[in-house]
Each structure stands twice: as C-alpha cells, then as structure tokens.
C-alpha cells in the first residue's frame, strides 16, 4: 500500500492521522476501495466497489457514514420484524434478523459499529434470557453507534441488559454495589480511578433497580449525600457520575484504542503516544462519527501494516462471500453456522467481547469455513437459494469461464494472490477455492 508500516508511524504519530491524499504511485484504486469496504461494510459487490472507485475516498467515506437514502426506512421495517418475533430465551430469530439487516442494509457501517459496541460491552443472551430485551438493547446501540459517545454510554449503562449482565439488580442506599462500580470503571478504561472513586460511583448508582427486566429508579433508595469523584465533589447521581468518568482522557484513549483494533489493526498494540492525536480530538469533539472518519481517511489506515492484516471473523468471512456474489441467504441457518464457527452474534464469550485476531483460525474452524462456503454455494439449499457465481459474473458481462475467473480474482482478492489457483472443473469450484485461500481469510 503506502508509506511504511506501524513502526514508521509510531515514530511520527502526527503524520499517521493526516488524511491520505492520492498521488504518484499511491492512487485511489481497486485495492484501496476494497480495503475500506472490507473493514467497514463486511465486503462489497462489484457494483459497490466500482461506485467507490469512481466517487473517490472522501465521498465513499461520507456515504459509508451517512448510509443510503432508504436506510432509515429499512431500519424501521426491520425493527418491526424484530419486535414481532417476540421474546423468550431463544435468540435464533433475532440473530437471523440482525444478519438480514447486515446483508441488505444500505448503511453497513452502522451495523458494523453496532457490532463493535456490542463487542465492546460483551452482553450475553444466555445471561439475559430475554431475546426481545436483547433486541431492544441492540436497537439502542444502533441508535447511538455513530452519535456522541456520552449519549451511548449513558444509555448503555442505564439499560436493563447492562444491570442484568452485571447481576446488579438492586442498588440499595444501604449497600452500594462497589463490585459493579469497579467493573464499570475498568470496562471504560478509567485506570486512574482510586478506591474512593469506586465507592463514590457505587453510591451515585444507588436507587436503580431491575424488576421484571425493567429498570426502575426508586428515589428513597438513592444516596443523595455529597460524593467525591475524580476530585470533584457534588451530589452526583449516576448520570452525572458517568459524565465525570467520560471526561477522563484515559476513557477517550481506551475507546480510541478499541476502535483502532476494530478498524485498523488487531495485531499491532498502539502506544498512547501513537493514539494521542486521535484521542485528544475525540476527547474534545465526543462524536464517534468524526473519529471514525479521521481513522478511515488516515494514512495509517492505508499503510502496509494495516492492509490485509486482520483475520476475518466468521461474520466478515461469510458476508465477504455473500456480498461479492450478491446473494440473499437464509439467515436463520447462517446464524447457526456462524455460532458453530465461534461467533454467536448474541453471545460474545466474555465481557471483553470476542478475542478475535488469530483466535478465529484453527484447524477445526478452517474445516468449518470450508463447509460454510459449500453450504452457501452448493445446491442442497441449506442456506436458501444457493449463491450463483456464474450468474453474478454474467451480470457484469463475464460470460466465459476465463473472464469470470479473472473477475472473481479482482472482486474477492484484488489480485492479491500469492499462488495461482489450479484449474478447476467449474467456475463454482474455482470460486470455492478462491474463498478458501489464506488471503481471503484476511481483511
């Protein structure tokens, strides 16, 4: 790609976050457009790729951040489907509706960020045991995913799912939940918190209860005495206390680092100095959208170190195929297949979310990915109507086998193949080989 790897930018953090300007050898081209769409939109069709190349980087990022014109209406429809699917402790239908959104939305970055925040918070359906409540929680994340970080964290920390996950259903004045407060501070990356801050935060949350999976604030159970939090004293309630925490620079640093891992590299551990310019502007601005825009436009995002350096999650792997082949698959079956590959969408394994990176790949998961590709493309209809590589290639005028193979090498791997794929008996067999190449496992 362009100028150097992370070592170079670690020495020059200011340069890392400057906008990438196409010039000379480093033009806005197929590889870069595909790189952006892989990281933000779980992959792309040839049409989307072509549009991105034609529009240029700034317009592409603006479109990714804003979504299509029909995005709001689509979300409304999907909300209706989800709500009608009911509750219970079976998340299969809700998981399938989320995948349905991811496949069909014209605002894929919003779904990606919803997944990011879901991963950030690590809430698990198996603990909540109420799929409808989990869906409501996801809708809340989606609503704030690109907004102000303060709004998102406030809504998240006062959602019943958060209290249920933390098993903190009663915050009584007589026994403030310090374990809950300590966990919250650690989760937000407030590393500068003292034991006194933990106690103060726990006292500020008193009064909150969860009954029948609904949050209630009982005034008489709130500790309205003065509390000192991060050196400031006042009669803080939970919202005011959270606002104080969110103003700590280390929190902005923590969120920025997690977003860096998500969008740029989960292999490179950035130093505080490296992220400092980005974190500082985020601390000032508070808008997640602006932070993402800076990241995606930056030189470091297009650097050699960031290019094809992340192992695709099972979701990104499947979506890369589905989007490339412009398919519409049975999301109920897909959700189960992804869960078998280690990514049950409503069940991040720990409070830190999915470990990601190299943890996605082992001998069993490679076999599982191979099975998934076969299920998506072959005729058994395990995933609804099979994806049809020949039809997709023909849609773009590639009717003969050679032309279609070239088309797929460019679409799926932008010719990043280190070794040629041997001749196959059919285009489908060739495409299956392509999707199982190590290069395709990387985003």
């Amino acid at each position: 790609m362009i100028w150097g790897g992370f070592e170079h930018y670690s020495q020059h953090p200011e340069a890392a976050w400057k906008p990438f300007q196409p010039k000379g050898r480093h033009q806005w081209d197929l590889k870069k457009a595909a790189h952006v769409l892989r990281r933000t939109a779980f992959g792309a069709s040839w049409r989307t790729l072509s549009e991105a190349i034609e529009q240029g980087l700034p317009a592409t990022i603006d479109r990714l951040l804003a979504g299509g014109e029909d995005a709001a209406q689509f979300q409304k429809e999907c909300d209706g489907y989800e709500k009608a699917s009911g509750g219970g402790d079976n998340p299969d239908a809700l998981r399938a509706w989320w995948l349905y959104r991811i496949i069909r939305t014209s605002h894929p970055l919003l779904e990606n960020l919803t997944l990011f925040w879901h991963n950030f918070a690590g809430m698990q359906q198996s603990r909540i045991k109420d799929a409808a409540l989990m869906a409501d929680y996801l809708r809340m994340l989606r609503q704030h995913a690109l907004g102000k970080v303060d709004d998102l964290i406030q809504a998240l920390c006062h959602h019943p799912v958060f209290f249920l996950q933390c098993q903190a259903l009663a915050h009584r004045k007589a026994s403030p939940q310090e374990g809950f407060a300590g966990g919250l501070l650690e989760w937000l990356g407030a590393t500068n918190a003292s034991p006194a801050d933990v106690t103060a935060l726990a006292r500020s949350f008193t009064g909150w209860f969860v009954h029948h999976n609904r949050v209630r604030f009982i005034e008489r159970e709130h500790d309205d005495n003065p509390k000192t939090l991060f050196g400031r004293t006042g009669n803080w309630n939970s919202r005011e206390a959270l606002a104080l925490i969110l103003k700590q620079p280390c929190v902005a640093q923590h969120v920025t680092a997690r977003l860096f891992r998500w969008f740029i590299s989960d292999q490179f551990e950035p130093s505080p100095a490296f992220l400092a310019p980005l974190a500082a502007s985020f601390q000032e601005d508070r808008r997640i959208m602006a932070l993402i825009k800076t990241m995606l436009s930056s030189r470091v995002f297009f650097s050699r170190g960031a290019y094809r350096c992340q192992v695709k999650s099972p979701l990104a792997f499947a979506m890369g195929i589905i989007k490339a082949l412009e398919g519409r698959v049975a999301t109920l079956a897909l959700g189960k297949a992804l869960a078998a590959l280690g990514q049950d969408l409503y069940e991040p394994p720990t409070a830190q979310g999915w470990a990601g990176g190299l943890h996605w790949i082992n001998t069993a998961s490679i076999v599982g990915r191979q099975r998934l590709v076969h299920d998506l493309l072959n005729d058994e209809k395990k995933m609804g109507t099979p994806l049809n590589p020949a039809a997709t290639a023909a849609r773009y005028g590639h009717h003969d086998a050679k032309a279609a193979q070239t088309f797929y090498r460019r679409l799926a791997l932008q010719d990043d193949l280190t070794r040629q794929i041997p001749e196959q008996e059919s285009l489908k067999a060739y495409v299956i080989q392509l999707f199982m190449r190590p290069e395709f496992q990387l985003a």
Partner: protein
Amino acid sequence: MRKRLIITSGLLILAATIFAGEKPRPAPRALLPAGTLAVLEVPQPEKILSFLFDPGLVEAITQTDGFKQYKASGDYKQLVQVIRFLEMQLGVDWQTGLKKLLGDGITAAVLPGGAFVLMVDAADGQLLSKLSNTILTFSGNQASQPLASRDCQGTAIWTLKPDSHFAQLGSRLVFSNTSAGVEAMVKAHGQPPEGALVNAPHFQAAQKAAGSGQGATLYVDLQTLKQNPDIQQGLSKSTEPMQALFFAPIREALLQANWLMLSAQGSGRQLTIQARADHPGTAGDASLDFAHPGGSDQGASEGIQVPGLVAGMSLYRDLFKFYSNKDRLFPERTSSLIFFENMMGIFFSGRDLTDAVFAELKPDIQLVVAEQQYDAARGIPNPRLPAFALVFKLRHPDTFALVMEEAWQKAIGLINFTRGQQAQEGLIIDRPIHESIKFTTANFSRAAYAGQKTLPANFNFQPSLAVVKDYMIMSATDQLARDLIDALSKESDDSPRPVLAGQHSRLTLRAAPILALLEANRDNLIRQNMLEKGHDRQQAEKEIGTLLFLLGYFDEASLTMERQAALSTATLNIKVNLP
C-alpha cells in the same frame, strides 16, 4: 447425408417391425421377472388425466402466482414450443394426444439388477408410432453422432443417450436407463420369463389384498429392500420413548412384512390411498403388545367431536404395558428420561409410575386439537396457536382423580416457581364449575399487560384438568376443556362412542380450520419464510400466498392403521375441494 440415411433406414426397420403383424400384447406385469424390486401400475391413466384436466382445477392452478411467475419464465416458453412442435408432428392437440398415448396404461418397475423400466401402452398404436418417429428424428438432429440402435429378436433398441434407451413393441413403448433393461422386456415380450413376477406367491398375495379396480398400485418387495443398510438403519430401534410409543407398531409391521402394496383410488372428491403389508404370523415382539388391540371388540375409539375441531388422534396404547417394557423399547437412559421420571416421582408423591399411575389408564387415548377463540378486549397472543387436549380413560376414576388433581397442581406450582425465577408472570389457579363438573384451570396473570392488544405466546395456554365420568381431560386451554366436558357428558353408557376394532391408530385432519389458523398467522409465516429462505417480503408473501391457496383445495384427511390376522393396513383418505 449419412446421418439422414441411417435415421431413415432405422425408421423403416421400426415401421416394418410394427406393422409386420401385431399379436395381442401380454400384460406388462407378465414381462417382469421374479425378484423385481418394485412395480408401479396405472391401468387407466385417463382417469387421472381427466382429473388433472378438469377446467376448474386448470383455471385455479393458472391463477396462482407461482404459475404466473413460471409462465413469464423462459422455461415455460420453451415448453410451449415443444408442445406446439409435437402437436404439429402428431396432428392432435396435446391433451387428446396424451390421453391416447397413455390410454392403455403405464407400468414402471425396478428390475432385480437395479435397471428402471417404463412401459407405456397406447390406446392408439399409430399415434405412438408417430411419436417414436418424432423422438428419433428430433434426437437424431440434436445429436452430434448418428443415433445408435441394435437389433433384438427383430426389434430395434435405440439409444438416445447413454442412460436413455427405448424400443417400440407394437403399441407399447419401453424405456429404460439401461439397454439390458429394454432387451429383457423385448425378450420377455416374445417369451414371458419362466419365473415371472405374476407367478410369485408374494406378488399374488399383494394383488389379492389390494383387490381389483384400483386407480394405481405400487408393489414393493420388502424382503429385498430391507437388505439396504439405510433402510435397516431407518427401521432400527428408537431410543426415544415418544417415537417408540407412536411408531413402534409401524416399525414392527415393516420389519415383519415380506411385501408392501400401495393402492390409490379416486372417487368424486375423494382420494383413498391404502398401504398393506403382510403379517406372516411369526412370533412378534411381545413388548409391542401395548399397541395391539387384543380381542375383536378392542381398538382405538372414534374421535371426540368438539366445536372448531382441527385434528383428532385416537390411539390404542396400553401405557402400563408400554412402560413395563421400557428397557426393551427404549433401553437408553437418557437425561430427559431420568428428568421425566424424577418429576413424575415428585408429582405423584413417590407412586410407582408403571404400577400406580399408568396402570390406572385404559388403552384408549385421544388427542384433540381445536381452534381457539380470542377476546380482543383482553388482548390476542402472537402467534396464535391451536388448543389441544389429551383425553384418557381411567380404570378407577373415583380414587385416581384426586391423585391426578394433586399432581396437576404441583406441576402448575413448579411452572410458577420456574417462571418466577425468570421474572415472568405466573399462573393463577381457579376451580370453576361447568355443567356441574368442577374442574381446575389456570390463567396467566395479566397484571403486567393491562390494556395491551398483543400478548406473548404463553397467553395461548390456560392449562386445565377435568374428570368426566371415567374420562380424564388434560387440556391446554379452558375453552377446550369445557367443550370436551360438554361432548363427553352427552355420551350415554348405552351408546358409547364406537370402538374401531383392530385399529391401533387413527388421525383425522380438517383443512378449513388449519387454513384459518395459518391465515391468522400469515404475518408470522411470512417473516419466518424471510429468515428460512432468505426471501424479501414480496417473495415471502407470494410463497405463503400460494401455499395457503393450494391448501384451500383440501377438505379433510384421515389416516387409519390396523392389524388384522395376517395383514397390516394403513388407509389414507383425502377429500379435496374442487371448484
């Protein structure tokens, strides 16, 4: 030029063969060797064609979205072109042509070596010859090589493709996937095989059991078929108690039988399909006696009629005998079985499940499924589910009713406790009186749903228990319990519901209420279709619309299963609604 010459000479040989002198053709079954695995015979296809060409049915099908979609496709246009071409070549419209070509019957068989053979007996030999010529000409023009043929006892056997061969024997056309298959039929046509299937005792017994005048029959040699490892696996013993309870008699019938004979007969709006298997009378598995009505007056009883009946199932199952033989019927001690027994121990206060609980139940079991009526003012659950109930006959209702009542209330308490742990509303027990019968019912608390129009799915249920005379009703809803109390109270001791002697299982289904139920849940079905098939809303609406439209053509169906002295019989009756 060479190709044309070969085809023309082939046609000449064929014509010469046909008109050299036609002798009466032997029945197709007479050509089949003993050891034939399966034979499908349709002696009068015209009846089926007349049904299919019924103008009302044709119009109904052509109005479906699915057909309109197909009509717009290239496949449909290609099909129309082929039909027009054939009509031109044969000089007859396709419907008449089809009736004439298939008029004297269709026979399909799987021969001992695995070859598949199809024999079509035309009512119009000349038309069949025209068709043969057309096939040969058309295939010859399409093929890059001249069509291959060989002579067999003066008859040309043509190879259209490596797995497609045919010959014409007078007004009979023989197709097979192997050349040897056609050859065997040609040779048998000249001289029927010594060990022909028609002389085999099993085939004769099967024919006799099916009787005459059937629209279609399918004979299957089960002895040979059961050698197949997949079928052996399918017939192997189940470890699931419920599967053993419902399907053990069917499994046993298939295990013991030498042959299976399926027959189909249409009459007016009714189609009857019967499956018969011989029961050689060898000592069966005594552990299966739980599903064998013993005397001539024993069997499943006729179904109970309630308003809005969707389905009814009558079973002759002796649960005492069933559970006494559990170690033979379902030997695996699965975790769910252990859990079930533990719970039963709690509900029945330590009574022995076999001797003190199941022994109290007579072998007459009824499952009743009925529509539910909802009060919109109190909210309607989503999805809407049908009500269902189990009705048992008690040996000692005076003493066992109280035991059951205690167990029932414990079960309701357990449900409440478990739901309470999950912060969900519980059931409130009531003991109303209906028709002078005091029964137990339980309603989910609506406190958290006041004023809501749509309620969670659990509001479909009001578990209820009632004892009427010697019947015990375990119902999923209060209304069905009341309807069953009404129905069973009216039964007099002098004229009880008839017992269907010899029948061990009987199922009836009514399409109209099922359709109404599906219509009420149309939105849910559409959403489910979107997730299960990856369709968008429009596609899903079309597919569900077509499904419901087609279901509208069914009226009702019943399935009965019985075992008489040497014969196991399953009878499926389907009534259709034709326009």
